[in-house]
Every structure is written in structure tokens, then in C-alpha cells.
């Protein structure tokens, strides 16, 4: 009990961080599942959502600025796919990946230019930024809400993918891109839809994340983005439940590592975990094995 009392805040923080990573990780995993593309810009889309909220809420009330933020993020995600990835659909994989890195670079630099490199204070959203006490730990309500909301959204997403027509198209494309194209799946609209969902979840993630951490900087998306990606790989890329479980595992591990005082290695540990799982089970925890046809 004593152990739990002193360490509850770490666990809480871990679960909350895990939830935020999960929302970003889904975007990665869905895009990768369909396009086999690591969308390096995803973390930066998340960052832009943060800035959009900062600037919008400066002049608009919250009930307008929050939906607006989500819309802007979704449009951005859509536009990035349209402008930077679609023209390269037939190009080698490496070119698309580099385009993704380029977009990430561009978004960060634009954010830098617009904010002149200064950190911005994130607006406080009433209720969820209030503090509550759980046992011995005091934390923001958002910490508790995050995992719940994450799970709700994930379940909704899984239902969407399982039971709707577009969900079926997405699954078909993840299995076999070429064949689904031949079978008349409108691949472009499905891909756009995937980016829209990913960006939508990233926008929600950014609301939760920045309410918790309160400061937005142009590189605020880089680390969470990378970690979320690691989570997606960890859980088996292409698998949504895998990404969520991976994200929670990584969020909790990260904080537990800090609990033991190995703070220098908290990031390194995440990557070490990734490499271990990749070497032991290259497709991640829940990934499907694919064999190359010879």
C-alpha cells in the first residue's frame, strides 16, 4: 500500500501519457497499414493542432475554437496527403518517406516563423484542467479522462472499420493494395479518409496533451510523434488495438523508468524496447506476418 501511495502519480502519468500516445499512434498505424508509409509529419500535424487552438481561442470562445481546431487539423492532414504523398504514389518507398520528412521539416519551420520561436501558453479548458485528488496523488481531471476517452474513440473506430463500407475498403487495401484497386475500391478517397481519421484523432490527442502540458512549441510534436510511432510498431504496425496497447505499455514504462531514477535513459529505454521487440518478433506484438512471394 505504501508502495502504491508513493508511486501512484507515476502510474497515473503513465496511463495518461499512454492514452495521448495512443491517439497519435492510431494515425501512424492506419496510414502505415494502407500505404506502408511512415508519416513522419503526423507528430507535426499534432503540433499544428496545438497552435491552432492557441490562436483561435485568443479571439473565439471555446465552443467554437475547439471544433475549428479539429477542422483545421483534419484539413491539414488531408492537404498533406493530397500535396505531398499523392504525387509520389508510384515513386519508390524511400521518396515518399523523404517527402514525409520534408513536410515535417516544413511544418516545424512554418510554426517557428509564425510564432517567432517562442513557446505559447495553451488555453485552459474549464473543468478538465481542474485538479482532483486520487488517493495520494493530485492531478488534472484530464489525466483521468484521457484513457477513458481514448478507449471510447478506439472502440468507435474499430466498429467503423469492421462494419462500414469504407472500413471494409480500408481493410481490403491494407491486405492487398493492388487487388483492391482492381476490384474498384476508390483508393484515393479511402486514403484521404484514413488521413482525415488520423488527423481527427491527433487533434483530440493534442487537446488532451496540451491541456496537460500547457505549452506549445514548434518541436512539441516531434518527441510524442516518434514515441507514438514506436508504440505503433511495438504493437504491430497496421493493428489498431496493437497501437493502443503498445502506447499504454510505452507510456507506463517510460514513467516507471523515471520512478527508478534512470531519467537519462527514459527515451533510450523506449527505443531499446522497440529494438528488442523488433528483433524478437519483427512484426510487433499483434502484427500479421507477411511472406514475400518468390
Amino acid at each position, binding site marked *: 500500500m505504501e508502495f502504491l501511495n508513493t508511486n501512484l502519480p507515476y502510474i497515473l502519468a503513465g496511463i495518461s501519457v499512454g492514452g495521448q500516445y495512443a491517439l497519435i499512434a492510431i494515425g501512424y498505424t492506419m496510414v502505415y497499414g494502407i500505404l506502408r508509409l511512415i508519416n513522419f509529419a503526423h507528430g507535426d500535424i499534432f503540433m499544428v493542432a496545438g497552435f491552432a487552438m492557441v490562436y483561435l481561442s485568443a479571439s473565439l470562445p471555446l465552443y467554437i475554437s475547439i471544433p475549428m481546431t479539429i477542422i483545421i487539423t483534419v484539413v491539414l492532414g488531408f492537404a498533406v496527403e493530397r500535396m505531398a504523398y499523392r504525387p509520389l504514389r508510384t515513386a519508390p518507398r524511400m521518396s515518399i518517406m523523404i517527402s514525409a520528412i520534408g513536410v515535417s521539416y516544413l511544418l516545424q519551420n*512554418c510554426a517557428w516563423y509564425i510564432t517567432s520561436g517562442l513557446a505559447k501558453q495553451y488555453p485552459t479548458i474549464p473543468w478538465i484542467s481542474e485538479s482532483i485528488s486520487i488517493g495520494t496523488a493530485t492531478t488534472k481531471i484530464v489525466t483521468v479522462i484521457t484513457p477513458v476517452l481514448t478507449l471510447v474513440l478506439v472502440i468507435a473506430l474499430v466498429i467503423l472499420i469492421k462494419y462500414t463500407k469504407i472500413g471494409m475498403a480500408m481493410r481490403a487495401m491494407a491486405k492487398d493494395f493492388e487487388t483492391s484497386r482492381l476490384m474498384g475500391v476508390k483508393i484515393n478517397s479511402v486514403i484521404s479518409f484514413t488521413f482525415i481519421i488520423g488527423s481527427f484523432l491527433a487533434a483530440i490527442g493534442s487537446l488532451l496533451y496540451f491541456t496537460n502540458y500547457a505549452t506549445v512549441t514548434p518541436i512539441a510534436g516531434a518527441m510524442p510523434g516518434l514515441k507514438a510511432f514506436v508504440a505503433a510498431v511495438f504493437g504491430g504496425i497496421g493493428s489498431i488495438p496493437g497501437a493502443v496497447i503498445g502506447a499504454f505499455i510505452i507510456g507506463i514504462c517510460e514513467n516507471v523508468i523515471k520512478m527508478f531514477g534512470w531519467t537519462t535513459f527514459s527515451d533510450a529505454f523506449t*527505443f531499446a524496447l522497440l*529494438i528488442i521487440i523488433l528483433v524478437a518478433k519483427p512484426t510487433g506484438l499483434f502484427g500479421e506476418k507477411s511472406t514475400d512471394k518468390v
Partner: protein
Amino acid sequence: MNEKNININGEITPPDKKNIFFKSVVGFLRKNWIGFTLLAALFAIIFILEQVLSSSSMLFVVLKKGAIYALVAVSMNLLNGFTGLFSLGQAGFMLIGAYTYAIFTIPAEARTAVYQYFDGGIINFTVPVPIALIMAGLAAALFAYLVGLPVLRLKSDYLAIATLGFAEIIRAFFQWDKLGPVTNGSNLLRRFPVFSSTLYPFIVSGICIAIIVLLINSSYGRAFKAIRDDEVAAEAMGINLARHKQLSFTVSSFFAGVGGALLAMYQTTVQAAAFKSAMTYEILLIVVIGGIGSVTGSCLSSFLFIASSEWWLRFLDSETYIGSFKLPLLASGFRKVVFSIIIMVVVLFYSRGIMGTNEISVDALLRFFRKLFRKDSKGEAA
């Protein structure tokens, strides 16, 4: 740089064992004399420029850094472009090289000042600079070998992420307080010998790139390219995938390590925090802009990249007035926006980069000019 002309066609003059090596060298020189002359001329020009211009001119800064990045980019190209292994660990291996070089060359009398929080550190000897450079490469290569054992079995994207992860782990490791007596923790290492002449990085990078080019044009280079084109077929041709990938990874890291050491000399200080994944991305962009699979492309684009980002575009960062009219948009940070837009344009519209997989060689240049000339004369005739 023109080392690319090296081109063995097996036309080496036969027997007479004693002189054979000598003769082949002479034959080689004779065949490539234009390239070597141009190269010599390049070095001479740099040497003369250094005498004429003030040594603080931005030109030399760009040339120095460009030469170093050219080496690192070529080493990355060996891996990504010629062997088809998508690795993002370059910054990590540069870090190892830079630290190895710095740790073993800081003069004993400066150690107390540098390792101020660690009582002067535990290494109390220095080695000569050239040896330290080689040690830097070897340390990086050794580490790459160990990393490669588990990681190289992974396929494309997974390999990229795993190597990126390793680079991050290496960085954390070098910042670890417990290693402070060796690495100075997360603090700067400085006061090690550095170069002042622009020729120095040019010569070192030049030699290293020449070796890489020799490797690429050797039997092993062909095997690497075969692996890049088709792993299954390469294996069916009796090429041991694991061994050749490992080899390419280790060799590439060796030169990344040397590049890291040169970068340390250029920066005059080393700190683990600087070797972030952003550095790897930068090098990757250089490789892509130059053309994946083109050595001369990588060299060319590294100079262009460094010059644009550190020199030519800097005016975009400062507010500029023409008369009393303030040019719009120009403000701190605008340079990077413009720069990233240029990069996006190149990536989207020239996905093959400046050179594609072609190389600049004397022959190609001659052919180009001849064609240009012919076109002109045709135009006149018409």
C-alpha cells in the same frame, strides 16, 4: 570531385610480375589523367583562394562543412543508395566518431579544464591526430558491427526505425553521468586539435570518398547493388546477404565516424546533444537531393545544401529595407521556411534528385559539351 573516373576495365597490361603493380598504377593514372588534373586544379584553387581571400570568408566555412557533409552523405549513400539498406543511424555513428576523436586528442594540460566536473577525466594520454581519426572510424565501425548483428535482419522501414532508435540510445548513453570521466557527461568536449586550412577536410574527405568509390566499383560494390536491386536474386547468385549487409553497414559507419571526427574539428567543440535525428534527416535530404545512388550527386548537393542553409539564404532572416519600404515576410525564421519549401519542391518534382543515379565524370562532361556544341552548330546551320 572527380574520383569517379576510376574505371577498371580489366585492361591491365599482362605478366612481368615485378613491375605489374607499378605498371597498372601508371596505366590507371594515364587513363584518368584529366580527372586527376582537375582534382589537382581544384585543390590548387582552394589553396590560392585561401591565400587571397580573408580566411574568415563564408566561402571557406561552407567549403569546410560541405566537404565534411559530402563524406558523411557519401557514406550514407553507400548504405541507402548502393546497398538499399534504409538506415537512419548516421548521426549516432558520427557521434561515436566525434567523441572518440575528441577524447583521445584533448591535450593533457587542457583536461582539467574540460573535465571540470570529473577531475580531469580518466584518460590521460593523447594520440596523434591521424591515428585518432582512424580510431574514430574504427570505433564507429565496431559499434556498427555490434548493432548490425541483430538489426540488419529487419526489413526496410523497420530497419530505419531500429537504427534511428539506436542512434538515440547511443546519444543517451554518451550523456550518462556515470560515464562522465570518459565522455564528460553531457558537457562539451573542447580544446582538441582542429584544422585551420580548408584543404584539410578536403584532403581527408577526398581520400575517404575515393576509397568508398573504389569499393563501390569493386566486386563487392556490384554485390551491394545486386542486393539493392533484388535480395532474393542476389542470394540465389551466392551472395551472402547477412555478411554483405553487415559489411556495407560497417564500412559506411566507419566513414561516418571519420566524418563525425572532422565535424568535431570543424565545430571545435563536441556535445552529444547536437547529434540528433534531425542531423540524420539533414544528411538524408542531401543524399536524396543529390540523387540516391550517385556519389558525385551527394558531393554536389552537400555543398549546395550547406551553402543555401548557412550562407545564401541568411539574408531572409533579417528585416530588409529598400529605401523606406520594408520587404514583406522577411523576419527571423523565414530562411528556414523558404529552405524547406525548396526541399519540398525538389522532393516532389525531382524525386530522382539532381543527378539521379548518374555520375559526373570527365567523359560525361566532355560528351555533354560536345552535344551542346553540336546542337549550337546545328542551330546555326538551320
